[in-house]
Every structure is written in C-alpha cells, then in structure tokens.
C-alpha cells in the first residue's frame, strides 16, 4: 500500500537508529572541542594529575573486569563442517520401479495401487530417490540384519566423509548424539558408532529416537547445552532415518503415504566450542527454538504409528497435517520473531497488534517479513504441500524455497537429515556468503516445530564433494504439478 521508498526509508531509519542518534552527539562534542582551541586542551590535559600507581590500578581493574565479563559469557557454538550421505545409484527407485513393486505386492488392492500412483504423481519427488536394498526385494525383506546393514551403510559413510573433511580423529570426539526415529536396536546406534570408530570410553553418548523429522534440531539443541557446560569440546551429531523396518506392508491408504515419500538419507555434523575452530568453522549457531504442540489432541494424533486391521504396523498421516503444521509454525514464529527480526519489523508488528486490540480488530494481522532477517531458508522437505504452505505463510519467493523443493526432488523426504541436504544445495550453488543468516525449520511427529538460526562464519568455496556434486548443474528443475505416470 505504502510507496516502496517510504517503506525502505522507515526500515533503514529504525534499524540504524542508534547510529542516527550517535552521530549528532559525536558531532556536538567534536564541535565543542574544536571551539576550545589547542592550547586550552593542553592545559586541561596537564591539570589532570596522573600518578603512576593510579594508572596501574585502574588498568589492572579494567582488564580484570573485562576478563571476568568475557569468561561469564555463554560459549559460542560453531558448526565446523557437515557431510551428507549420497546413496549409490544402484539403490535408486524411479517411478516405474516403485509402481511395478506396488502392483506386484498389492495385487489384491488395485485401489491402493492407484492411490499410490496419484500420490507419487503429485509428490514433487524425482526419479533418483533411493530406498534401501531390503526394500527392493519383492516382497520386501525387512529383517533386523538388513536394518542394521542399512544403518551401518548410511551412518558410517556420512561419518567417514565428515572425518575426511574436518581431519578430526575419532579419539577427539567428546560428545556423540545419534537420532533415528523408528529404528532402535540394543545396543543403540550410538554404541554402534562408538564400536566402529573406537571412540573414547569417557564419551558422552546419547541415542534419541521417536522424535520424528524434527529430531535433527533437537540433537543440535542437546549438543548446544552440553557444549555450554563442557569447555574445549566437540560434538558429533548424526541424523538419519532407517527405512528398512518401517516400510508399510499392508494396504491401508493413509498408511501407504509414507512409503511414497520417505527415502534413504543421513547427515553427520561436527559442532565445536573450541577457540581454534573459530576460523575454520562454516557456521555459528545463533538460536534454537523448540515448540511442542503435544498438549493438543489433534496435533498429537496427526502423525501416529499404529496397526492396521490386518495387524501390520505403519504410520498414519492425518488429513489435518497442513493446518496443524501452520499453527505449530505460528507458535514457533512468535518465539523466534523477537530474537531475529530487525527492530523495524518488530515495531510494525507491535503497532498493528496494538491497533487491532485498541482501535479496530478488523485490521489484518501483520505478518513480519522474515526475508529481512534471513538470507536463506531451509524448510524441511516433508512433502510438496508442506513447502507450499510455508511459502505462503512466510511470503517467500520461489528462490527461497528452491533448496527445499530441489532436495525433495532429488532425495525425497529423508526425515531429519533433509535440512542438511538443503544447506548443501545452497552451498553447491555458490549462494552462501560470509555473514548470511540461515533459518532451518523442521516439523515432526508429536507435533513439534523446531527451528535453528545459523550465521555463515567464513567464505565458503563451492564444494567439490558432497551429495549434489554430480547433479547440481541440472538444478533447479521445474517440477510440474502432476507428473503423468
């Protein structure tokens, strides 16, 4: 409504208000000094009696205060580097393979087959997503051995890649957090990592599960709390989802949906609070905000694992998923907004809020412009509908959600690791610059909405390795509304 330059001017004024106040004061002071003249300044200077002892005491006190102040500040957490798993070409599942499998396995339920086809057409997935080897069998063969095999393949591969990139030795890892929602063997996956890499015996290991697609950010939150308490340490966070034991083998339609969307993927992230890593770290962690809507019945039940009438276990996604996601996002934004939005946006929001309360509640609620606060957005690639919904809610352009859409296309919904594939896409495209702020948003069962804010710490060269290495030049692709199968 307002002309563009008015809005720009207002923004510039409010964001830099301190500078605007500071300049006149400095100008006034300097004019006063200039008016005095040089001889008068010298006499004033000489009249102040300085004793050597006083100077020593004062400087000692000042350094002491400064040291105490800096020591009591919370430690900064840096992301040194991260690595994503690139599935081998042999495990990819193009649409034709998926539909053929589906027709053979569900030959008694043509309606379910058709349902799957319709989902796949509109899913936004591409032809190069992967499923684990056990699921390629007809019928699928999900033994525990196969599940362990998939876990070893994806996790070890990601960690190997990370160790190569960061040149870290296994003995140097102090904290290990593994999150995998639906596969939890005894000993845990974290014990498996400790065993394979011969990590130290006083390592602090944690194995989180059941926390859905937002578990990656929960692990980051835990790592942050731990790194605040333990100085000079680093933390290895592994986010993954093991598909093998969770492939639904029944014919209920609502439970076939995850089969169409979830794909193999994992990410390994190295966080550190060491001074030495400050220069080589890629990102700095600024905020993590977690919102849990479990208290609400509908939110709790919208992603629910249960048995179908035949006794087969699968995950039921309710139809209200989008609405609930929108509400969870609103709650999360309410908390994160004041932390990240520039002063201009916050003032506008406050004014419209007051205006609605006092004057006229018909005023449209002001949706803060998050594009002012962030340069890049990593929205969990939960599905096409999720990305569409968030793009609408946050008023983002197509370029902002490109990373999410392309990750969904190339890798499918890899659950908690999808955020890291998206970040990798942005880096591969060479769009990440020093000082850029990134917002990672993830939704998960429960219903949770977690977000993390990162700041790019150094210039990032376009990576020559990584999951996008061989296909980045083909992206972005245009994903049609419906792919006719």
């Amino acid at each position, binding site marked *: 409504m307002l002309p563009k330059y008015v809005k720009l001017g207002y923004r510039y004024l409010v964001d830099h208000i301190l500078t605007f106040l500071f300049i006149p004061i400095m100008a006034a002071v300097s004019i006063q000094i200039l008016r005095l003249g040089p001889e008068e300044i010298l006499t004033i200077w000489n009249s102040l009696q300085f004793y050597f002892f006083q100077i020593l005491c004062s400087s000692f006190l000042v350094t002491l205060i400064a040291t105490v102040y800096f020591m009591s500040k919370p430690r900064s957490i840096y992301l040194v580097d991260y690595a994503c798993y690139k599935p081998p070409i042999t495990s990819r599942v193009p649409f034709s393979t998926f539909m053929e499998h589906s027709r053979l396995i569900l030959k008694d339920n043509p309606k379910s087959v058709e349902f799957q086809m319709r989902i796949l057409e509109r899913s936004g997935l591409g032809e190069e997503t992967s499923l684990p080897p056990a699921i390629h069998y007809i019928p699928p063969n999900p033994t525990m051995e196969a599940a362990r095999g998939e876990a070893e393949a994806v996790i070890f591969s990601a960690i190997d890649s990370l160790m190569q990139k960061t040149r870290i030795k296994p003995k140097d890892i102090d904290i290990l957090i593994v999150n995998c929602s639906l596969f939890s063997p005894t000993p*845990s996956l974290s*014990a498996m990592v400790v065993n394979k890499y011969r990590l130290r015996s006083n390592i602090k290991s944690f194995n989180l599960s059941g926390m859905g697609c937002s578990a990656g950010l929960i692990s980051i939150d835990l790592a942050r709390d731990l790194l605040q308490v333990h100085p000079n340490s680093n933390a290895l966070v592994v986010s993954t989802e093991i598909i093998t034991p969770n492939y639904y083998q029944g014919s209920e339609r609502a439970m076939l949906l995850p089969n169409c969307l979830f794909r193999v993927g994992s990410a390994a992230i190295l966080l550190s609070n060491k001074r030495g890593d400050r220069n080589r770290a890629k990102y700095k962690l600024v905020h993590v905000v977690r919102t849990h809507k479990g208290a609400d019945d509908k939110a709790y039940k919208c992603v629910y694992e249960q048995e179908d009438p035949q006794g087969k276990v699968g995950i039921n996604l309710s139809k209200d998923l989008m609405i609930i996601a929108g509400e969870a996002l609103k709650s999360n934004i309410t908390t994160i907004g004041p932390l990240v939005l520039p002063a201009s946006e916050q003032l506008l929001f406050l004014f419209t809020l007051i205006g609605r309360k006092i004057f006229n509640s018909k005023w449209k609620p002001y949706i803060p412009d998050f594009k002012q606060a962030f340069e890049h957005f990593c929205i969990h690639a939960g599905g096409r509908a999720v990305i569409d919904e968030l793009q609408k809610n946050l008023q983002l352009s197509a370029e902002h959600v490109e990373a999410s859409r392309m990750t969904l296309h190339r890798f499918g919904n890899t659950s908690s690791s999808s955020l890291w594939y998206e970040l990798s896409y942005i880096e591969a495209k060479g769009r990440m610059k020093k000082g850029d702020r990134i917002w990672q948003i993830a939704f998960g069962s429960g219903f949770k909405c977690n977000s993390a804010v990162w700041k790019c710490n150094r210039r990032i060269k376009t990576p020559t390795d990584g999951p996008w290495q061989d296909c980045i030049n083909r992206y972005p692709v245009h994903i049609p509304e419906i792919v006719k199968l």
Partner: protein
Amino acid sequence: MFSYCFPLLCLFYNLWKIFDRRRHQNCYILDYECYKPSDDKKLSTRFCGEVIRRNKQLGLNEYKFLLKAIVSSGIGEDTYGPRMVLEGREMSPTLEDAIIEMDDFFLDTIDKLFNKTGISPSEIDVLVVNISMLAIVPSLSSRIIHHYKMREDIKVYNLTGMGCSASPIAINIVQNIFKTQRNVQALIVTSESLSLGWYTGKDRSMILTNCLFRSGGCAILLTNKVALKEKAMFKLKCLVRTHHGAKDESYDCCKQKEDDQGYEGVHLGKNLPKAATRAFVDNLKEIAPKILPVRELLRFTLLTLIRKMTQKYNKTGAAARPVINFKTGIDHFCLHTGGKAVIDAVAQNLNLSEYDIEPARMTLHRFGNTSASSIWYVLAYMQAKKRLKKGNKVFMISFGAGFKCNSCLWEVMRDLDQDGNVWKEFINSYPPKTIDNPFFEKYGWINEEDPDTFHIPDDYVIP
C-alpha cells in the same frame, strides 16, 4: 575516590554473578515414585511353568536349562510381567499391547508423583524419557506431553536403546541443562517395554532375558531451584560414564538380533560378566578419586607403592593386594539388579557385606530385573528401611548394553522416612527368612527325566 568505586563495584558484581550461577547449578531430586503394577500381573511359579510349557519350541533340554537359570536367578514369586503374557498372547504381541503396557505405567506412577509433590505438569521445563526397547512415532515422551498437557516450550528428549544403564544418562542430560539455565524443573521417566521384546524361540542365550526382565518403572522429579532446596531429597555430587563400545567383545556381548529361525531377541553372550567387570573397573578408577576422602586415596597409593617395592626385593612372598575401601566415602550402595551373579560379583569386587547388598538382593527378589529403573527400587528399599540419614552418601551404579557402566553419587539432604513408598505395604516382611526359589521344589523332577521318553500330554495341567 569515586573513580575507584565504580570499577570495583563492577568487579564484585561480576564475581557475584559467577558465584550465584554456581549456586543455581546443583541438581536436586525433589521426589521419585516407583511403579508397582497391579497384583493381577504377578508371575507366580506356577504361571511361569505354564508359559514355558506353552512355547512349543522348547524341549526337555531347554526345560533343564531354564530350571537351572531360574533357580539361580534370585527372583521370587511376586514379580510382575506384561499384560500380554498374562493373557496368553506372548507369541503374537501387537503394538497396542506395548502402548497399553506403557500407559499402565505412566498413568499410575506419574500421577502419583505429581500428587505427592504438588507440582503441576505445566511447571515442567524438561522431560527426559528413557525406555529402551520401544521406539514409536510419536515418541513416548510426546505421549506424556499430550496426556498431561505440558507446555509448548518444553525441552523434551526421548532416549532409547541405551539399555539398563540409561538412568544415569538421563540424569546427565538434566544435569547439563541445569548448568545452563536457572529455575528449571525436570521430569525423568524410566522404564522398560517387555511386550514387543518377548522372545519366542529356543536359543538359550536369548531366552534368558525372558527369565530375568520384569515390569517396572520410575518417575523422578528434579530441580535446580535454590528455593526448593529444603524440600529436596538428594543432591547430585558427581556422575561418571564409561563406554566400552570400542571393544568388540564388549559391544557384542549384549545384542538384539534374530536367531537362526528368524525370531528376534536379545542375545546375552558368555563373556558378558567379563565385559561387565572390565567396564566396572574402568568406571571405578575414574570415579574413586572424585568421591573418596583424600586419606583413603593416600592410604591406597602408599600401600600399592610399598607392595611394588617389596615385590621387587622379595620375589617369593607376595603381600595381599591392597583393596580400596569404598565404604570410607560411600554409605549406601545402589547396585543394578542385573541378576544374582552380577550382584555377587560387584559385592566381591567392592568388598561389601550382606547388609550393603541386601537392598539390591531384595529388589531382585521382589521386582526382578526392571532394567534401567532397578536402581530406584533399591533406593526406595533403603528409604523404606529408614537407612537414609542426612549427609549420607548413596552410590548408584548400573551396567548396560554397549557395553556401558555408569555411576553417580548422591548426598542425602535430609533424614528420609518411608512416606508413600513402593515398598510400604510389605517392607516389614523383608528380608524374608529364605529366598530360595520355589521353582526347584515344583519342577525339580525335570532333571530326572530322560529326553527320549519325555513327553508332556497336551492337556497336562500344572498343579
């Protein structure tokens, strides 16, 4: 003059801030509540025999093995099993069974805990749930949040797969959060899900878990609020975790896998005691300097040096190895009730008397091996017996798959009496005159049977 006051004030303020932060970083247990399942879930000797007979996979050799295992297990007549076993459906448990098992525990114990302490669920800032063998979506922690309508900004962690030693791990998370935030109240819920892990094959190393693990759980309320210090029961002094997963023998000794016929179960290897001892010794080596008084450490060091020197000069007579006396720094021992052999081994290593290991033995007898929550039952026994006085130090140690050994030391904040404890109704009958397992009496005749002629008719009813 004034120019010195201001920086000095700044300095004092900053120093006070650091000191004040330390004060707010202590981890206190406000209260805890152990789960006592309803009496209709008791596994009597007769019923256990029935369950074994129902499993058509087992033959006479397996019966003999089971008899030996159960008789020497130290488990009594009053332990509790999951509902689906008691309803005869252990061959085909469903996800519903597992969830009902957990709901029975949550709704009973967590309600009691909230009522006892007067704290409302919306005041909980941190929730850590550790239930090793069940990972569902949404997680069990979300289930609790949903049921109790907890706040949106709650910090929640759902740990799984961490075995019987998971309690100190959950406490570790809470301890860390307490150090970074003030005025936090945390709820830890620990239990084990037996429904989906019930082994239905005939591999001996895997069937052992069915004999040992029983239903149980505990909910613990912790805080770092200085204002609640007077109400607190225990204060955490130190916590040490040891992870031996890097060694292959330790990692493989307790593993969940499929047997030759494809049945899933937890395999307990023969070298489990050795792996456990190694992890135990390493853990003690790390925690001993932190909890024992200096004079005991000096005494031990001196004796070891003297022994080394006398051994050098006098190769024949070797003096007895000096043993560290843990009782100089610890008053009560909460040992994980992994089994009779585990308790005996730990008692021998630490030189403990019958009085010291009585709580662990009695817990094993009355509740069986309830996995991660067992140490809380042991603690509840000590409290019920009025053994815990202000200033006492309680040492908790537990072992778990991985192989992990985690331990922590608590200081008792006030004289604790019984009030509302899981042992309340029957504490006076403990310790019983005999803890011999009646299994031998009832089923000892199996040992006389010959495998070739052994046959149980289908309509055989166990007397």
